[in-house]
Each structure stands twice: as C-alpha cells, then as structure tokens.
C-alpha cells in the first residue's frame, strides 16, 4: 500500500537496531564528526608491502580524514608513515603516487628528509636562521604504521590508539590460514562515486543484494550451501561471512576454476568486513581488498586492489587476472552492478530528497540473507559516535531496548 507523508516519515515497525535514519548518510555535521570519531583512531589499510618492495620505495595515500600520507620503506627495510606535508611552509613533499626517494626533498625551498622522518638539510640554514633554528629542530610528523594481516600496511593517526592486533582481534582468523604465503598486488584502481562511504560498506556487509548480480545468482544462490553461509560479528564492528563453493561453470563463458588459493576449497569464498570501511574478499583465486576514503557526505573514493601469490608463474598469474576481471575489474560483471546500486542510493538519498529510513530488518539465523552484518556495524557506529544510528539527532525516540550484535 502506498504511504502518505506522515506514514512515510513514521519510524519503521522494527526494533530500533533494525533500521537507521537516512540522515546518517547525508548530514555534513555527522560526516565531519565521523572523520574525527571513527577514522582518526581506526587502523586503515594504506597499501600493500608489495607496492614498496625495495629500500626507499614510497607510496602516497590520502587518509580518510583527508591527511596526505607518505608510506616509505627505509634502508633498514622498516616501513614507516609520515604526513606528506613539509613542516616549513606546509607544501606537498612528494607528488607522484609511488616512487623511490632516498631523500624526500620539498620542491618549494629544498628542505630534505630521510626515510626515518628526520630533516637532513635546510637550504641556506645558517644564513637565514643563524643558530635560532636547525634541522634537528624539525622533522616529518610520523604516524603509527604496522605491516600485517597479509602484508598490508596499516596506519593510525591517533598516537594513543590500540595496537593493530587489538584493533583487528579475531576478525581475520578465518583468513589467516590463507594469508601465510607472500602476496603481490596485480590490480589497482580507484572509483569515485556520489554516495556515502557507509553505503558501500553496507553492500559489502550483506548478500541479500545477490539478486542484483546475474553472475552470483547462477553461480552461488542457486547452488547447494549458499544459504548455509553464516555471519559472525566481532569486536570493533568487524564481521565475516563463511565460505561456500561457487559453481563458476554455471555462467556461460566461465569455467571451473583450476588454480584456486592455498587452503581454500575450490570455488571457495570468504568475506570479512573491517570497521569502518575496509573489506577482505577472498574468492577462488584472488584476494580483493576495498578501502573506502570518504570525500564528502555523498562522495566516496574506493581503492580496489587485486592480489595473487608472489610465487605465481606467469600462467598462474594470468588465470588469477582473468578470474579477477570477470567480475571485479572496471569492466567486470559484478563490480559495475554494485557501484551502480550504491550510486543509485546516493542519488535517491542525498540531502533534500526526503529519504527517511534504511531498513536492516532481515533475520535468518545469521545466514547469508540476514542483515545482521549491517546491524553489527551500526551498533559499533552508534557507540563510537555517541549517536544512535536510528535517531542521530536525538529527536525524542527511545533508546534501543537491547544491543544487537
């Protein structure tokens, strides 16, 4: 039955934990607050160690808070992270997204820094600063940087944050046996979409939207075991979905996958969402990693990586790339559909459209079409933000009766 204005605005007939107010996706105040309360103190994937294999190799990364970062491997092979901001006049130090720099020299006034963040040269220092200011008095702002969980380089802007290990907890245990061999990035692209970053994470946190994907319907949903996949929620808002066997040859032009992944059943698929906007997606022969960098309430940049094994032969790598591209390249069948769907949400939900609620109400014993993954995320979001996602501006609705995990 259609709804009039009052009915459209009325809160959904679900527990408070089973829906959110659409304004959490569109409000500029909430967006700015998320950067401070969620992203600043979370561990975020900046790149993979294979992107900086040698001494002095560096990689740039724009942190979700907006801070430009340099990730660099030192002569001692240690990976460190710094602001890509010159302490002199606030200029960008490195411009190319990746490269090799024994000395990182700001082009503006030629101040130079080493890979430990020390200032090693101030041009015409004595003439200008006499003894008032020396190179020892300055340096790059270091950020906490750790390498782990499959060789990814993680950064945290909060000097007082917990360790990466404590942040992840047991969330990646399901994947740990499959990430013991060195991996290598073979695919990278960015997609900028007019939608909220949480809507992308939502899409990665529920499989009910497999109805969107012809490929997944016939290779997954119609196959035995699909509806047995279970969600597990972890501390800090992370969640996983267990494996099943995907029947790739059910899709015309596709075929049974031969190459697989160490320890993963043929056609296997494990997906783990990490709060607040990262996803490990191991499917058959490829590990895909999504990292969301919010650019505005209704704009997100998503970095997509595809990884194989470092020991791959050229033939094996070619097969992984083929598997990846079938569904996940910019011309792949599934990624386009997923991005189209969240673009559609952004289009229907941006400020002023009178979108009111987003429902996360499906309960199916935590199995594949249950929406518990999103409920788990928003319980953590509400806790960290100090705002209930169902009533972010506390306009008089009661607190949830129970926390749902």
């Amino acid at each position, binding site marked *: 039955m259609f709804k009039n204005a009052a009915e459209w605005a009325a809160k959904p007939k679900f527990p408070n934990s089973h829906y959110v107010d659409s304004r959490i996706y569109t409000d500029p105040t909430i967006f700015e607050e998320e950067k401070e309360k969620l992203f600043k103190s979370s561990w975020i994937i900046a790149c993979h160690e294979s*992107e900086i294999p040698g001494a002095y190799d560096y*990689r740039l990364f724009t942190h979700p808070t907006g801070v430009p970062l340099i990730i660099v491997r030192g002569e001692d092979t240690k990976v460190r992270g710094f602001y890509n901001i010159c302490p002199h006049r606030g200029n960008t130090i490195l411009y*190319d*997204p*990746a490269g090799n720099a024994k000395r990182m020299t700001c082009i503006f006034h030629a101040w130079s820094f080493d890979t430990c963040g020390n200032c090693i040269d101030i041009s015409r220092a004595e003439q200008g600063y006499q003894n008032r200011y020396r190179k020892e008095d300055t340096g790059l702002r270091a950020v906490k940087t750790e390498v782990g969980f499959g060789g990814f380089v993680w950064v945290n802007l909060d000097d007082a944050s917990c360790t990466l290990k404590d942040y992840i907890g047991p969330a990646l245990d399901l994947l740990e046996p499959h990430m013991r061999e060195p991996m290598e*990035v*073979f*695919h*990278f*692209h*960015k*997609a*900028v*979409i007019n939608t909220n970053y949480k809507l992308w994470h939502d899409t990665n946190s529920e499989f009910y939207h497999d109805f*969107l*994907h*012809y*490929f997944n319907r016939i290779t997954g949903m119609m196959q035995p075991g699909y509806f047995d996949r279970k969600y597990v929620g972890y501390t800090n808002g992370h969640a996983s979905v267990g494996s099943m066997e995907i029947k790739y040859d059910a*899709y*015309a*032009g596709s075929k049974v996958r031969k190459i697989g992944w160490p320890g993963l059943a043929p056609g296997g698929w494990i997906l783990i969402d990490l709060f607040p906007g990262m996803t490990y997606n191991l499917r058959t022969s490829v590990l895909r990693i999504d990292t969301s960098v919010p650019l505005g309430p209704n704009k997100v940049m998503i970095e997509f990586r595809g990884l194989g094994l470092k020991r791959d032969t050229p033939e094996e790598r070619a097969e992984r*790339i*083929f598997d990846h*591209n079938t569904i996940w*390249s*910019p*011309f*792949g*069948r599934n*990624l*386009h*559909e997923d*991005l*189209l*769907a969240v*673009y559609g949400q952004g289009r229907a939900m941006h400020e002023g459209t009178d979108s009111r609620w987003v429902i996360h109400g499906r309960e199916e014993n935590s199995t594949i079409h249950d929406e518990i993954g999103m409920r788990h995320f928003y319980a953590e979001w509400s806790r960290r933000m100090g705002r209930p996602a169902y009533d972010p501006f506390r306009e008089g609705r009661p607190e949830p009766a129970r926390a749902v995990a």
Partner: protein
Amino acid sequence: MDQRQQIEELVYRTCLALDEQDFKGFLELCDESFRYSIAAFSPEIRKDMTWLDHDKAGMDTLLTNLPRHNSDHSPLTRHATVYRVSCEGERADVVSALQVFRTALDGGSTALFAVGRYYDTVKLGGSAPKLLKRVVRLVTRELGAGYHIPF
C-alpha cells in the same frame, strides 16, 4: 579504395558498431582468431594491468550475456583518429587515438569518459581487412562505476 583508407574505415566501423551496440556487426569485422584486451599502466603500483581479455568467442558470450546483467544504459560515443598505419605483408599495425564520451540518458549531457589508444593488428589480403587483435590502452583509469560494454 586504397589499402590505407580500407584500414582506417575498418577502425571507424568498429567504433560505429560498438556505439550502436551492433555487436554482431562488430564481431563480423573481426577475424576468427580475434583477441581483444583492455590494458592500463598504474603509476600507483607501477605495473601494467589487464582489465579485460577475451578471444572472439569470449567477446561473443560477454556481449550476449549483457541483457542478463544490470548495466549503466548511458550510451557511449567513441571517437578514434588513426595516427599510424604500418603494413607488412598481410598484416598491418594500426595506432589510433581514442576518446570515449558518455551521454546521460536523462537530459543528454555529454562528458568525456576516457581517453586512450587503440593498438590494432589488421589482417589484410581477403576481400576486406579484418581485426586480428585490439588492445585498448587506457590513459584514463578512474571510470566511476565502470561499464559493461568494452570500448
């Protein structure tokens, strides 16, 4: 029509066929051993990447399956300019500049979607030249939601 003109016309006809979503017509311009790929270099990971790679049968399946998928229906317009043709025996290597424009269905605004080049290998000697191989080498790598139909 001289050989160079025939080759240029082949490149332009592939653009027209794809723009019109006449996939049968496009594949008729391709040899049986046709190979199509889309490639790009990533300065971020400092590697060459392949984003799509199919033989003729694979292209046929990809295009036949399109109606089963949810796709962006905004039409594309391919603009190619043949820069260089090098003939050797019964083959020609052809380099063309490529611009792809995307037109919104609602309102019809057009924006540049991608730039790159076609690196084509053309089979000569038959009644008409045929495409043996096409590598679409993209300079543009940020394609928003991407696209289901090859460039």
